[in-house]
């Protein structure tokens, strides 16, 4: 059995006295996955990633990264902050040289240069003169250059145009596949992640709502259309809505469904939205045992 890339146990983070950004989060992410952390703005995605990167200390619970305390795993983890902070007074080339200097022994200059080169960036240009997309590229180059085993990306593609997004995502996935890197990236745009990710972590209201392999999660849910008044009580209901004489619902069936119900598999976006619309819907976070068995 391999060590999970990311593992949280009753993890919680409070800012100030009473506002919990994240509370009672438990999940396990197997190594080698590409995981989407999805949720509305302010759901706690950034807090979760910062906790994993060792930038914040948890208020309660624990988080382990590659089997170690986040502080001990620092050199094996890459992180790109939402705001893509970089030193504005340095040039692109200087920024990469700094990356080489600060990551002695595990810096991959070729990868870093390749990421930057794709953006048609003048290495002598200062960071402050770059566009948002170009900054993202340099920030990604720094994160990938250190050849991380786990890459944490907070809204990495937010300020990229569709073309650059597609190209960078391709590059990212290529690097991840080539080195077996586990990637965790957050976004509030589900469609952005659907093609590249195989694992989902849905965060809402500071809690983990869904966690698991995307295919498994989709298979566990069914969108049903049934006559109004149909009894859903036997199943876990995520969302149900009655329009006229028809009932439409997303459920986790706990047994065979009546033949007169029309059933379809929901799309990922469909599933995510139905959970976000219904904060009271029961969370689905497979117990660690089942997850391990699936690895």
């Amino acid at each position, binding site marked *: 059995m391999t060590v999970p890339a990311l593992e949280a146990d009753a993890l919680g983070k409070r800012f100030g006295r009473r506002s919990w950004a994240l509370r009672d989060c438990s999940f396990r992410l197997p190594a080698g996955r590409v995981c989407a952390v999805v949720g509305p703005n302010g759901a706690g995605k950034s807090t979760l990633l910062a906790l994993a990167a060792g930038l914040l200390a948890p208020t309660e619970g624990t988080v382990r990264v590659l089997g170690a305390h986040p502080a001990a795993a*620092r050199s094996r*983890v890459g992180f790109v902050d939402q705001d893509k902070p970089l030193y504005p007074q340095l040039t692109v080339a200087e920024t990469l040289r700094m990356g080489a200097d600060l990551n002695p*022994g595990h810096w991959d200059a070729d990868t870093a240069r390749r990421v930057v080169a794709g953006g048609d960036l003048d290495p002598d240009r200062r960071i402050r003169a770059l566009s948002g997309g170009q900054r993202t590229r340099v920030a990604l180059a*720094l994160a990938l250059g250190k050849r991380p085993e786990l890459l944490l990306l907070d809204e990495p593609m937010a300020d990229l145009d569709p073309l650059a997004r597609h190209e960078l995502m391709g590059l990212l996935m290529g690097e991840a596949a080539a080195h077996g890197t586990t990637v965790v990236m957050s976004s509030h745009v589900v469609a952005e992640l659907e093609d590249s990710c195989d694992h989902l972590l849905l965060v809402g209201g500071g809690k983990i709502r869904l966690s698991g392999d995307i295919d498994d999660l989709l298979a566990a849910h069914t969108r049903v259309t049934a006559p109004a008044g149909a009894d859903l009580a036997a199943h876990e209901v995520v969302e149900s809505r009655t329009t006229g004489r028809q009932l439409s619902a997303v459920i986790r069936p706990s047994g065979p469904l009546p033949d007169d119900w029309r059933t379809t598999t929901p799309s990922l976006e469909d599933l995510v939205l139905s959970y976000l619309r219904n904060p009271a819907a029961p969370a689905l976070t497979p117990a660690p045992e089942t997850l391990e068995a699936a690895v």
Partner: protein
Amino acid sequence: MTAALTTPAAPAARTAGVPRQWRWLVRLHRPALIGGGTLVLLTAAALVWLGGPLTDASAAAWKAYNACGFTPRCSYDQESILLYKDVYNWTTIAVLAVPFLVAAWAGGALVGRETESGTARLAWTQGVSPARWLASRLVAPAVLTVAVTGLLAALHHWAWAAGRDRIDTATSWHDMDTFHANGTIPMGLALAGLAAGALAGLLLRRAMAALAAAAATVGVLWAAVHTAVPYLWPSVTRVSGLAEGPLGRGLLVSEGVLTPGGRAEAPCVSSSMHSCRDTLADMGATAFYRDAHPASHYWPLQLVATGILLAVAGLLTYAAFRVLRRTTGTARG
């Protein structure tokens, strides 16, 4: 330029060492280093000018002035006297301003700007642990601060001593600005300011707020030292007759009259005036007294004050590391 991007072959170290970070610290703060260095060099040059040619010219002018006596027409070089005074005052201000500048820079640029923009987090995820990051940002600037304040205060002391007995209006050793600028207090203040800037930057995470807080801290510390200095070493008491008034030169601590009931505030300064004699007689005063520090107490006073400031700097540094450890939970290693 790009050729230098090749991987350095240093597989041993897992995290970046402090010296390696200093190179980037210097690069990141190059404008501040050039600006600050220029100011320091200008002040040092002005002090050398002050202690050499300006002191000579001013002393010569005073000699000529004093030789005039009551001659109705007499010429002396008034310009030199005024220039000496101006340059002395401005260089003293410059030396005393260094702790404020260090604090403002530490709060605003060194730490505050990094915590505000998030580049600190960038560094912490680029193989530099938060504790090492903070250490690299405190050690090299502290060494530089000690060197700069030491150099400027030494030059100031030298320039002041050069004119001490030759220029009639030269300030005495216990004139407050001169007292501070001649010794080690600016060094202590500047180091406390550096630590205060780091702590403010970590706590406030706003460059301008940290800048203001750090400079204000130095102001408060200076006011505190200024008030406390006379009491940091046992003073010398001199008792003098009622006709003489309180006597004794140096840094004044307190003065008054001695009565059978103990020390009391002096109602007036000499019994040679009738009204004063009567008042003193009514009080039963036997003598005047004055507590003061002679010039030989200069270094003990300076060193005790500096020691206290260094202790404050140490506490602020400890607090900064504690704050960092509490936020990131990872200061060890």
